[in-house]
Structures are given as C-alpha cells and as structure tokens.
C-alpha cells in the first residue's frame, strides 16, 4: 500500500495496552476485545489493515450503529411483539404501517443528545435533518415532526454548573431555535413533543426527534440494492470534515473536554439543500426509477454502502475520488466515514440512470455516480485506481453483541400518611407554574405547525389567543380522504426514575389515553430509549426493567413497536440522565371532523371523571411540591386501559362527549384547570367522600387510565358507561369564571381562572423572555 493516496497501513501487532491506546487515539472507541478480533481477522488474511478499514470497523461496531448492548434485550421484549397492521418493522430506517388500502404511513424516532449538548442549535437541527431522511428513504413524504426535549432546571444557579457543561437555558434556547429554523424551513409541521426539566438532565440533555410520513404502498422502497448492475448514486450535500466520528461520540460518556475535542462531530444543518433533495428523491421514486434508497446518517458512506449491498445479498465497489467534497485536503478515510448532512444514496439500474440524473439536475441538487454492485459479498474501495479497502461485508456488519450485566436496584416504596396541607390554592398555583406543567407556548408557537395545510388539531387549541394544551395532534395526510393520523408522545422521567418498570408502563398508558382523548384509535408505537452507561450494571438494570415494563404494558394492546432507537451513555461525571424511554404513538381517526378537543365548550355542561383513582403518589408532582420522597408508583392495567378507551371512543362516535383531556402530571385538578384555559369558562367541582383518600389527595393523584370529560347529555352517557362497566364519577359542571373545588361544603380550591392561566402562561416566559 502506498502512502501516495494518503492511505496508511495500521500495524495491529501490538501488545494489549497499545491496542487499546490505538483505538482511542484514532477515535473509534473500540474495546480491547473488539480490537483483538479485528487483529485476528487481519492475521488470518495475512496482512495489516489500512486506516480506512480500521475506521470503517470502528463505525460499524459502535453502540450507535450495531446496538451491541441493547439488542439482546430488545429482541426478547420489544421486537417479538406483533401487530397485523405493521408492514415493515425495525429492519429498515423507519417503521411502515398500513394507513388504508392504498397508503401506508412511516414513522421514526431518534435521539440527537450528544451533539445537542455540545452545540444545541446545530445538534438539534441536524437531528431533524436526520429523521427526515429516515422517512424519505422509505419513499414517504414527511407530514409531521415531533420533538421531545429534556433539560436541567432553567433556574440552576451558574455557580452550580459543572465544568464544561452549558447552562440548561442556553441549551433549551439553542435546541428550540435549531428545531424551529430547520423544521420551518423545510416546511414540515412540528406538531407534537414534550418539554421536561429535571436536574438529572443538566449535563446530559436529551433531544429526541420523530417524524411521520405518508407513502403510497406501491411507492415503498427499501434500503438495499435490488440486483446486480445496480449503480450507487450519491445525491445531496457535499462531503466534508464535519461530522467525523459522530457515532463514536454518541457512544461514549460526555466529559469536560467534549466541547473542544468533539468539534468535528458537530454540524450546522442546511435545510435549503434538504428541501429540494426531498422533492427530487420523492419524484425519482414515484417515477419508479429507483431500486433502493438509504440516507447517509451515522457512519456515513462506510455504513450505507456496506449495509445496502449486504441487505440485497451483494457486495459493492466504490470509487472514492468521485465523491463531491466540500474541502480539498480530505484523507480517504475521512471521506469514507464523514457524516456530513443532507446526503442520500440511491441504487439505480443502468437504464434509469440518465433520467435520475436529469431530475436531480432540475432541482439543482448534486448528483454523482460513485460505484456499483458486485456479486461477491465484499466491499471494495478504490481511490484513483488504487484499491485501499477490501473487506467481507459479513465481518463488517456482524458487530459484537453483549449480554451486559444487569443489576436491579431495589426501590422501596411505601404508602405514607401525610398531613393535610392548609392552603391547597397555593399548592395548585405552584403546580400550575411548575415548568413541567406550565404552558409550552414559548416553544410550540415558534414552530410552524400548520404548514402543509393539513394540520387538523394543533398542539395548543382554544379560543384564538387562549389555549388549552391538547393531548395529541391530528394531521390529515391524504388530500382526498378525511382520515387522519393522530400523534402523541409521552414520558414522565420522574415516574421512570422512581420506578423504571411502572414508569415505563405508565408512559404507554399515557400515550394511549392521549390518542383516545382526541378521538383516535391507537395504532402503532415507536420508542427512543435514552439511558446511561450500559457498562454499569445498575444503569443497565434500569434499562432492563424499563424494557420489561414496556413489554408488559403493550402486549395486550394489539399494537406494537414498529420503530425505535436506543441511546446509551447519556452520562457524565456527575451521573446519568434519568432513565428516559420516550414513547411516540400514532393513532387513526376515521374522520378528522369528529375530533375532540380539550378546552371546555359550554357553560352548564357536566364534568365527569372516568377511571379509577388510587393512592398512587410515588414520583408525583404533588409529593415533589410537598417535598415527600415516598409513595407507591402508579400501576397500570392494560385490560382496563383498552376497555375504558373503547367505551370512550364509542361514545365519542355518538357525539356525547364535548371535550376530553387525560389526567397526567398534577392529576385531576391540573387537568380541569387546563381545560378552562382555552375558553372563557370556569368549573365547579363538588366531590363526594372518597374511601381511603382525602380530597386533596384525590385531586392530585396521578393514577393511570383516567380522563376528564365534558358531557351535555348525562343520562345517555351514564347509561352507556354503566352498561360497559366503566368506573366513572360526575364531579361537577362548567360554570362561572373560577375554578372551585369543594367536598361536602368544605372549599379546597377557589381561584379565578384568569389568575391560574397567567401563572401557567408566564412560567417559562419569565425565564426565557
């Protein structure tokens, strides 16, 4: 091998400690055992690897690319769930699920945590860019973006900020701006998400991004080559030194110097290159000119070429000098692993090539042929005529798998007696102004959620300028029919931290009831599992328990996970992020005009509570506000969830339900308050005596599978629920301009809604301005 082409041999004949050192020095982060199996592989070949070969293995075997820690657990508890509506699951970049006889929808959910922690604006923006590519590469038109994001407390004193860590406020501002500027510019509505603040995210912020797309079934395309003779055509952005080692960066803990050492992993997205790229890819695909399409994400060319060829049962030969570069002095290995944004790889047959080139030229999008398929299952890379890379794709794509040690941390939970607080008004006000409850309009209104003209229910909805938070968003993806996609996310890190098993089950419950609350039938799930370092047994124990909880909660629901992502190593010197299994659910509503919203509609209508309330305060907002650390975590029962949901959906069809909101953090009191915010009406609740529970406990309990409902025709509703044996309780009516809660003549709460609304509206604005 000559060094003429800037390719160097790497000598692996080294003692163990030197091997490990080498792995670190060249930035691929492989463990000693992994380095040893690489060494053996090349020993058998009787030669030393080139730098580009070593780098490629580093990419392919990273946690991010090959799920080496999590795969065993996922296989057992997540992937084995089946649901008839799923078309393709897990294997591809995104899940594909049946929408109706002609269309399928596509969903994907991913993390972009580490880049966002270092450079929030570019990190979040490129996260959006990446998730769009995942959906487009199935041939689908993106129709909705989703952004669950998690930060440390906004009021964290600067003095307490760990070294090398950016302030939560800085990160929050930057992440939201990144999502806004990218999402708005590509013209895909951001319709759903969540915002959480928790001290555990201070040095490990979590940025998850999701996307839903729509595709004609006949246009679904795979991420693989189809036949011998397929040509590899690279389209979109040019390749640069930005984003080198992104996946390795994502597969290690953050440390003080991450900021300076990881700069190359950080990028600024270019939505104005992406927007025409999407159009061109979809145009070429719908004209049936493509045999395969895959996005260039983690691992860059190195991963995409091998995986596409391998999945098709072939190999690939690439002429690396053909790749269009942003900068001149790039080493071949850098070109091979660069994660520059806005790039896609197409597999095209000879006869369609010209037409494909024409389409991309028309859209002013770069397009270049870089290689072809070969019969043997190998990947060969040439650089100006010289072979610099030659490996079996089997070896490359068969990264190691680990059965990591699981240590379950026992969490003792006990129900305790508390003293009744004297001023419930004050407690409720405090809860309403907690940043986790407070209005997220500072974020949401910066996103264009109505672009494409197909958003039927926006995340905030109400009376022109006053909004109630909605449980799900609704998008109508197909012009000629009124069927809609219902989209919601859920996760309460306080609950998962308190109890990973039940907290994760609760996330499923919440996302399910969110979809039902607006009139949707839950249809499919995606998960993004954000956890700490899996090499630490107790972290992996949390992961294990959480996955078990998801498994328990979903197996009777007749819906399953069609897509997912795992992000580990969300950990720094001061600890791990709270376990954060973000859940995305897509539901179906047959007629978007029958949607139900959460703001109250009419004075005098009755207010009902559906579902059972238990003494479940573990991890609740109420106990956090009171400063109590005990309590039982909310349980959930999938059968009840399904039964209650079916009954509600049935009565929605009859038009009995005027508004509906699920109960989550802060329980009944917060839910009712939120329903008043989006209209001009107050509410009067008068509670009966409740067994085993004081009224203040009843209004703040966070038990699962519950909804508040506004009803015009009490009798009809009650008959129906009784017939179906659904627990319910009439708790009051819409009336006045205050929120009043009484029990047997005793007043617990009496506040003007205007006061509560202002607290709710301003809490985040007061920090962010």
């Amino acid at each position, binding site marked *: 091998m000559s060094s003429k082409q800037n390719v160097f041999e790497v000598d692996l004949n080294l003692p163990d400690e030197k091997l490990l050192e080498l792995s670190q020095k060249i930035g691929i982060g492989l463990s000693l055992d992994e380095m040893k199996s690489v060494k053996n592989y090349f020993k058998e070949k009787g030669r030393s690897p080139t730098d580009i070969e070593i780098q490629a293995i580093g990419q392919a075997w990273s946690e991010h690319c090959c799920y080496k820690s999590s795969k065993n657990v996922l296989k057992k508890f997540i992937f084995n769930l089946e649901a008839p509506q799923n078309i393709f699951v897990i294997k591809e970049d995104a899940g594909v699920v049946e929408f109706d006889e002609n269309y399928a929808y596509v969903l994907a959910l991913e993390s972009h945590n580490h880049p966002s922690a270092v450079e929030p604006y570019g990190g979040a923006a490129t996260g959006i860019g990446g998730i769009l590519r995942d959906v487009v590469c199935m041939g689908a038109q993106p129709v909705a973006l989703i952004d669950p994001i998690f930060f440390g407390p906004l009021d964290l004193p600067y003095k307490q900020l760990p070294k090398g860590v950016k302030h939560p406020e800085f990160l929050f501002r930057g992440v939201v701006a990144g999502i*806004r500027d990218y999402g*708005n*510019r*590509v*013209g895909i509505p951001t319709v759903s998400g969540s915002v959480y603040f928790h001290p555990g995210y201070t040095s490990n912020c979590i940025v998850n991004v999701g996307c839903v797309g729509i595709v004609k079934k006949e246009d679904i395309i795979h991420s693989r080559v189809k036949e011998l003779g397929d040509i590899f055509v690279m389209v979109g952005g040019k390749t640069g030194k930005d984003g080198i080692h992104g996946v390795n960066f994502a597969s290690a803990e953050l440390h003080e110097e991450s900021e300076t050492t990881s700069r190359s992993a950080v990028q600024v997205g270019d*939505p*104005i290159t992406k*927007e*025409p790229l999407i159009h061109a890819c979809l145009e070429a695909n719908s004209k049936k000119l493509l045999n395969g399409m895959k996005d260039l994400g983690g691992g860059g060319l190195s991963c995409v070429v091998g995986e596409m060829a391998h999945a098709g049962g072939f190999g690939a030969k690439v002429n690396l000098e053909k790749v269009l570069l942003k900068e001149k002095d790039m080493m071949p290995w850098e070109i091979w692993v660069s994660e520059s944004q806005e790039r896609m790889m197409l597999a095209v047959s000879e006869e369609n090539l010209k037409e494909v080139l024409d389409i991309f030229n*028309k*859209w*002013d999008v770069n397009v270049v042929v870089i290689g072809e398929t070969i019969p043997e299952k190998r990947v060969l890379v040439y650089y100006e005529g010289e072979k610099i890379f030659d490996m079996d794709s089997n070896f490359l794509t068969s990264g190691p798998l680990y059965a990591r040690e699981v240590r379950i941390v026992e969490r003792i939970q006990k129900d305790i007696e508390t003293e009744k607080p004297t001023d419930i008004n004050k407690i409720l006000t405090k809860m309403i102004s907690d940043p986790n409850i407070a209005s997220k309009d500072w974020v949401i*209104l*910066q*996103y*264009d*959620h*109505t*672009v*494409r*003209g*197909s*958003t039927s229910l926006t995340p905030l909805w109400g*009376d*022109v*300028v006053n909004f109630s938070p909605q449980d799900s968003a609704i998008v109508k993806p197909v*012009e000629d029919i009124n069927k809609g996609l219902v989209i919601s996310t859920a996760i309460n890190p306080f609950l998962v931290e308190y109890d990973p098993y039940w907290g994760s089950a609760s996330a499923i419950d919440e996302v399910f009831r969110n979809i039902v609350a607006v009139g949707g039938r839950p249809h499919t799930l995606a998960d993004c599992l954000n956890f700490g370092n899996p090499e630490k047994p107790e972290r992996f124990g949390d992961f294990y328990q959480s996955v078990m909880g998801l498994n328990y909660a979903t197996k009777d629901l007749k819906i399953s996970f069609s897509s997912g992502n795992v992000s580990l190593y969300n950990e720094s010197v001061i600890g791990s992020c709270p376990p954060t299994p973000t859940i995305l659910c897509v539901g179906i509503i047959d007629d978007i005009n029958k949607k139900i919203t959460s703001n109250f509609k009419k004075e005098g209508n009755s207010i009902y509570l559906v579902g059972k309330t238990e003494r479940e305060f573990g991890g609740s907002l109420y106990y956090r506000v009171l400063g109590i650390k005990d309590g039982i975590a909310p349980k959930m029962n999938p059968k009840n969830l399904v039964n209650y949901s079916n009954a509600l959906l049935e009565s929605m069809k009859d038009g009995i339900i005027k508004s509906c909101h699920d109960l989550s953090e802060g329980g009944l009191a917060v839910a009712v308050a939120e329903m008043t915010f989006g209209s001009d009406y107050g509410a009067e609740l008068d509670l009966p005596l409740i067994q085993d529970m004081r009224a203040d406990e009843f209004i703040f309990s966070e038990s699962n599978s519950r909804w508040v409902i506004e009803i015009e025709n009490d009798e009809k509703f009650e008959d129906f629920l009784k017939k179906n044996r659904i627990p319910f309780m009439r708790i009051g009516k819409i009336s006045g301009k205050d929120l009043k809660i009484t029990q047997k003549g005793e007043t617990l709460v009496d506040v003007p809604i205007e006061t509560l609304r202002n607290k709710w509206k301003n809490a985040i604005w007061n920090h962010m301005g």
Partner: protein
Amino acid sequence: MLFGIIWGDYLDRSDIKVCVLRIEGTNNEEEMYNAFKRLGTSPEIVHLKELKDIFDYNCLMIPGGFSAGDYVRAGAIFASRIRAKMANELHKFIDEGWPVGGICNGFQVLVELGLLPGFKRMDYPNACLFLNNSARFECRPTLLKHESKGKCIFTRNIPKGEIMMVPSAHGEGKLLLPKEKDFDKLFENDQVVFRYVDKKGEYAEYPWNPNDSAYNIAGICNEAGNVFGMMPHPERAYFDRNKNGISGMKIFESVLKYIEEK
C-alpha cells in the same frame, strides 16, 4: 360566466391556468396548488428556472415558505431572481390586469419586488415586511377583518366587515412604509384589504396583531386591485368556515370569478 365571452369563446374553469411559482425553500406550493385544484382549475407548480412565459397562465401565485432560506431578508432572494428573469413581462402581465397573489413569503416577495404597495412602477422595494416586534417566528390563529371596499379582486366574494379566522405563521410580517403619508394613501386608495382584529372585531394589540403591524394591516393590494398580498394563510383555513360560512376558499373563488369575467 356571462361576462367575458369574446368571440364566442370563454374560459372554462378547467381552462384557467394558475402558475404556482417556486424556488428552493418555497414550501407551501402544494397547499396552494390544492386550493386551486379543488375549485376545478388547472394549477401548475412551476420552478422559476423552468418558467417559459408568464403569459401561458391566467394567474400568478407566489406561495409561502422560506424561499432560498429567507437568508438576507424574507423573500429578497426570490424577488431578485424574479426581477432578473422577467421584470418587464411581469409588469406587462400586471398592467393587462392579470391577477398576481402572494401569501406570507409570497407577500414578502411582492413587497421586495416593489409591486406592493406599487404606488408607481419601481424596481426596488418601497415597503418592508419587517421582523415581528416579538422578534420571533410565531405560528398562531389570527382574526382578520375584511376591509376592501371592492377594489381587491382577490376578496370580492367576501362581504366587507366580515371576520374570519386564518392561521398566521411568520417571523417577518410587520408592514413598514417609508412615510406616514404612505399609509394615508393606502387607505384612501382602498388598498388595505385585511386587518387583524380581536373577537369583538376591534383593532387590538399583540397577540391579536401577531407582528404589531402598523394599523393592524395584514394584507394589501396595489392601486389597480389585481396584485394582492397577505401574511396569514387562507389556504390553511380552506375548510374552516366562520359563522357566515366564509372560509379561506373565498379568496381563491374570488380571483377565479374575476378571471372568468375578465
């Protein structure tokens, strides 16, 4: 349909060709296309690069979005490319009375082209849609009052004084004119088409007026009434009828009626 029959030949709906013009980053073209398609016309989404002759069309629409990323200024790059390509033809198209409409980013483009308010022919901007007072992009429902006395051909089907809810989504929507007197002229000429109001129909402040536009102006037309721009998105409120059954659709219907009668 009774009008405009010249030599026994009149325009059928499906003969009406609407040019929905785009460049990279224009991303509301599909909604705009659908708005005209639903009414039975033959719209086409045309890339500026591929536009042959504007006179192949009966109407030019510039949709919303972030043309060329809205770098420099919202709409500025798109405007300068249009000017470079077809300034004279476009002026002629307008002088002959053909409709030209811009929504959101499209409005910004028309302003940057100098076509709105268009007091006189000029090849540089004479107004600006400037950064919202909140200094941020905002997506929210807004209430608009229709104020045109009949000049604007895009709103003739909407009764004067009608209030409709139309979503807004922009960061740069505050109308600025060089002189205070220019606003007087705008009102005198019946060029003010939509103004932001509150639920009572009164001119109210932020957030009712999402960008703090002077005089709550949301949409204007040129002196002849055939060039029209507005910040909010009627194509996104196409099916959302108000109490009197008026929706965003009326805007598209109005311009079609004008073309049919022309």
